[in-house]
């Protein structure tokens, strides 16, 4: 060894290098021999074994699909169930003559041409060794007919499985949603291994939002098969883990009452338990029967649903965006009080219209002669427009926007469903960004009565009402009762909200005014208060679908139904100890108090156990 640390010794370095190269080459040769030894093991010793496996790809790994979780309402009623069903399946690789086989099956089982075509379309998209369903929901007769001749149809088999069934049909179609056949796009995004045995995936509603939990984990069985691909020996097996059963907060009795009460109108009704945020009613009318979607709805039937003027596929509770009209007034009034812009005793003279200084435009009140001198309480009770025009003008759009935003207007509620719409709470910034325009003073005025740009979803409206009833403790609506189903993977999307810093006296004043909407002689919904054994707080609303031109007269009978105003109603009860908050929207219902009000009252009555 060179003992010299300071001078380079080329010869010594070369000698070391040479010895190391020899060691490395020996290592390389040894490792290569190792590779060859492994190859000998695979290709000589194991050849027979692997050749058999390869020949028929004879280890068949069959997925065992997990049972999808059942969906219940709060009382244990089943909203989404699994029912036994027989499916006719083909493995293309094992079918000797596809055309002939399909022709024979068609005559044997009376398969409609449409299904055969659908199958042919699916064919090239799947791997040749994958199992593809040809006919779903076989009848007992079909099962019997095929079982007799099965040996003559290699690669074709009947699979007994469970298929989704929705006993309540259209009643809860928008909340529960439905499952459908996995489409090409979903095939790319779903975890492939876990969906090997599954034909269905949640498409909408709870079925989609909680897909991961409802689906479960796929098991498999590894079969050794003979030349006819029949399993002869189980090599390995692992059981599937069923999906989690979900318990919704929905109350089917209330839901049915609400849905039935909406009959004759397109619309929505939402009811939220104030103390917890549980959604008891989530009704969007018209609904649709989700069951055909499970088996693949026919294109004609689907087109009819899609093109129907009543839009049955439209989830109005979650995605319907309506001008809130006068239901906004209690919140605007509270904005005035909390900002100390005016006092509760502040009076405004209402001559039947409102004008901004230096502007000829007349903002009309719904009452042609005007309300005279009104206090805030009376302005809410009688729904005086001029009072709120004036209040909005005093507050200005910035303060109005910032306050209403705290009640959740203009943003998603964060309920545990997908595709929620945020509504629209206008502001200067919003208008500059999306319309590239300055804010006009007149737009502030109409925002004060919930017209103009403002749009809310029924869910938002119910939530804001519940939060008001809860005296500023923000109520967070949700549908799945997580306490009953621990260990869900799907995250609770909704955030924990803070408490709004509201002055108790202000809230009490607004709530008392809302009570008098029902329980005073001049209330816009006084008809609902007759003989009511509890106190209800409410506000009616009528939202213009189109704008009445200046100086034009408005006549409800003369305009076509589709152009009639939307009827809105928000309420909570009992007023002294609020338990349930309700929002109802009846499209083209005309006046809120007379159309939407009774629907809300039915829901609350039933909830409180009053006939």
């Amino acid at each position, binding site marked *: 060894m060179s003992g010299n640390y300071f001078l380079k010794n080329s010869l010594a370095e070369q000698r070391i290098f040479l010895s190391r190269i020899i060691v*490395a080459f020996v290592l390389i040769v040894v490792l290569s021999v190792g590779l060859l030894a492994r190859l000998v093991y695979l290709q000589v010793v194991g050849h027979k074994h692997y050749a058999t*496996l390869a020949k028929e790809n004879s280890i068949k790994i069959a997925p065992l699909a997990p049972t999808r979780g059942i969906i219940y309402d709060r009382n244990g009623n089943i909203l989404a169930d699994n029912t036994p069903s027989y499916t006719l399946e083909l493995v293309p690789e094992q079918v000797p003559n596809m055309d002939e086989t399909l022709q024979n099956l068609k005559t044997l089982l009376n398969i409609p041409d449409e299904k055969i075509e659908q199958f042919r379309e699916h064919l090239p998209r799947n791997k040749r060794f994958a199992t593809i369903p040809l006919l779903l929901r076989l009848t007992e007769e079909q099962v019997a007919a095929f079982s007799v001749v099965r040996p003559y149809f290699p690669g074709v088999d009947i699979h007994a499985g469970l298929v989704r069934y929705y006993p309540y049909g259209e009643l809860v179609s928008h909340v529960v949603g439905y499952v459908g056949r996995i489409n090409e796009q979903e095939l790319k995004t779903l975890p492939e291994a876990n969906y090997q045995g599954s034909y269905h995936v949640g498409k909408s509603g709870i079925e989609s939002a909680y897909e991961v939990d409802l689906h479960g984990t796929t098991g498999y069985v590894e079969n050794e098969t003979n030349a006819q691909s029949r399993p002869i020996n189980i090599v390995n097996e692992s059981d599937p883990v069923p999906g989690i059963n979900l318990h919704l907060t929905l109350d089917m009795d209330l839901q049915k009452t609400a849905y039935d009460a909406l009959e004759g109108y397109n619309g929505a009704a939402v009811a939220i338990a104030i103390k917890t945020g549980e959604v008891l009613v989530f009704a969007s009318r018209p609904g649709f029967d989700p069951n055909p979607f499970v088996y693949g709805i026919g294109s004609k039937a689907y087109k009819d649903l899609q093109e129907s003027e009543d839009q049955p596929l439209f989830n109005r509770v979650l995605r319907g965006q309506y001008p809130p009209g006068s239901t906004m007034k209690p919140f605007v009034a509270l904005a005035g009080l909390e900002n100390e812009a005016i006092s509760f005793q502040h009076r405004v003279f209402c001559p039947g219209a409102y004008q901004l200084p230096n502007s000829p435009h007349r903002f009309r009140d719904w009452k042609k002669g005007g309300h005279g001198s009104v206090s805030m309480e009376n302005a809410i009770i009688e729904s005086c427009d001029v009072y709120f025009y004036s209040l909005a003008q005093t507050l200005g759009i910035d303060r109005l926007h910032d306050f209403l935003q705290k009640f959740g207007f203009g943003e998603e509620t964060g309920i545990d469903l997908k595709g929620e719409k945020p509504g629209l709470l206008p502001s200067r910034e919003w208008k500059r960004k999306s319309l590239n325009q300055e804010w006009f003073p007149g737009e502030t005025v109409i925002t004060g009565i919930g017209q103009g740009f403002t749009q809310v979803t029924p869910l938002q409206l119910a939530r804001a009402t519940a939060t008001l009833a809860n005296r500023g403790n923000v109520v967070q609506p949700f549908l799945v009762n997580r306490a009953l189903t621990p260990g869900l993977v799907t995250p609770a999307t909704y955030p924990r909200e803070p408490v709004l810093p509201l002055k108790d006296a202000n809230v009490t004043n607004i709530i008392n005014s809302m009570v008098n909407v029902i329980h005073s002689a001049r209330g816009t919904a006084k008809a609902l208060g007759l003989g009511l054994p509890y106190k209800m707080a409410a506000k009616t609303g009528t939202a213009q679908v189109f704008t009445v031109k200046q100086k034009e007269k408005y006549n409800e009978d003369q305009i076509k139904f589709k152009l009639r105003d939307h009827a809105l109603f928000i309420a909570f009860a009992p007023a002294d100890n609020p338990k349930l908050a309700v929002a109802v929207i009846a499209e083209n219902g005309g006046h809120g108090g007379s159309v939407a009000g009774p629907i809300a009252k039915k829901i609350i009555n039933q909830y409180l156990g009053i006939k």
Partner: protein
Amino acid sequence: MQVETNNEEFEVHSWLGNFLRKLHIDIPLFMGLLLISGLSFVILYSASTQNMDVLYKHFIRSCLALVFMVMLAHVNPYQFKRYSLVLYGVGVVLLLAVLLMGEFGKGAQRWLDLGLFRFQPSEMLKISTPMMIAWYLSEHVLPPRGKQLGVTVLLIIFPTLLIAKQPDLGTALLVASSGAAVVFFAGLSWRIIGSLIVFLGALAPVLWQFLRDYQRNRIYTLLNPEADPMGKGYHIIQSKIAIGSGGISGKGWLGSSQSKLDFLPESSTDFIFAVFAEEFGLFGCAGLIVLYLLIIARCIYISVQAQDTYTRLLAGGLSFTFFVYVFVNIGMVIGVLPVVGVPLPLISYGGTSMVTLLAGFGILMSIHTHRKLLPT
């Protein structure tokens, strides 16, 4: 064998031979590379289910990589030595840039988009790391010890960690081994090697904590592929079926049923060896491994003939890394190493690795053809 006897001690009196020598091309190495490239077209034709488009792209890439190799063969090794530090530095900076872009973009990021083409800095490090180590060590007294050893370890570990973070475990492994090989050839004492092995063995459970879930899964899968045949174990199970069913003599060219029927995934890229093994059997596999060994033998011969410490260490490092390449890929396909994305050198479909590989051979040729004539 022809390849072995054709070295320049035997004068090749032909026009072609003179021409190649003028190009600074080492004829035996060149022959070996041509042979294996030719083979790659034969295998790829079958593995891609006779897709001419794939062959065409492979041809273009091979040509470009060959041109690059010839260009590098022309460069005097002195220049490599001179720019070792710069190349290494630039490589590391680019790695950092890629990592930062990955932070701002989404998920894993290995590419640097240069507009015209996309560039993978980690590939560059496969060459510049051994260059850097060889330069650093050749400037000091060998064998390395003490401070130099510490610096060397840092020089290797830094880019390795950056690449592993991308995450690209396969390339990180190759970069680390290329650097380690140079240190080994520089004469790292056996006592240190021994204690390093013991130390790494003890460290393994700690490193395990740093692996990502999917990387751990690959190791679980290797140990027991049957545990998850539908998912993670699928590659290895199908690959073993393909290789085993090939038997001693194979099913013949274009005769592989496993890859044809879509059982075998990535049959043109990382798992192409399985297709080869199914079609050409044990004989074919042995032939291919011998061909690789011949190329490696020539590379080692070049490094032994090298005239100074820098070129010697660099040549030795590059030769050994090439073997690691072959070993890791075949090892993973036959199920003795975990699945890390390393292609079969010179045969797998895909451009970047081919350019890097041929660049390495270009440097080896440069080292060999720029020797000064010494009296023997």
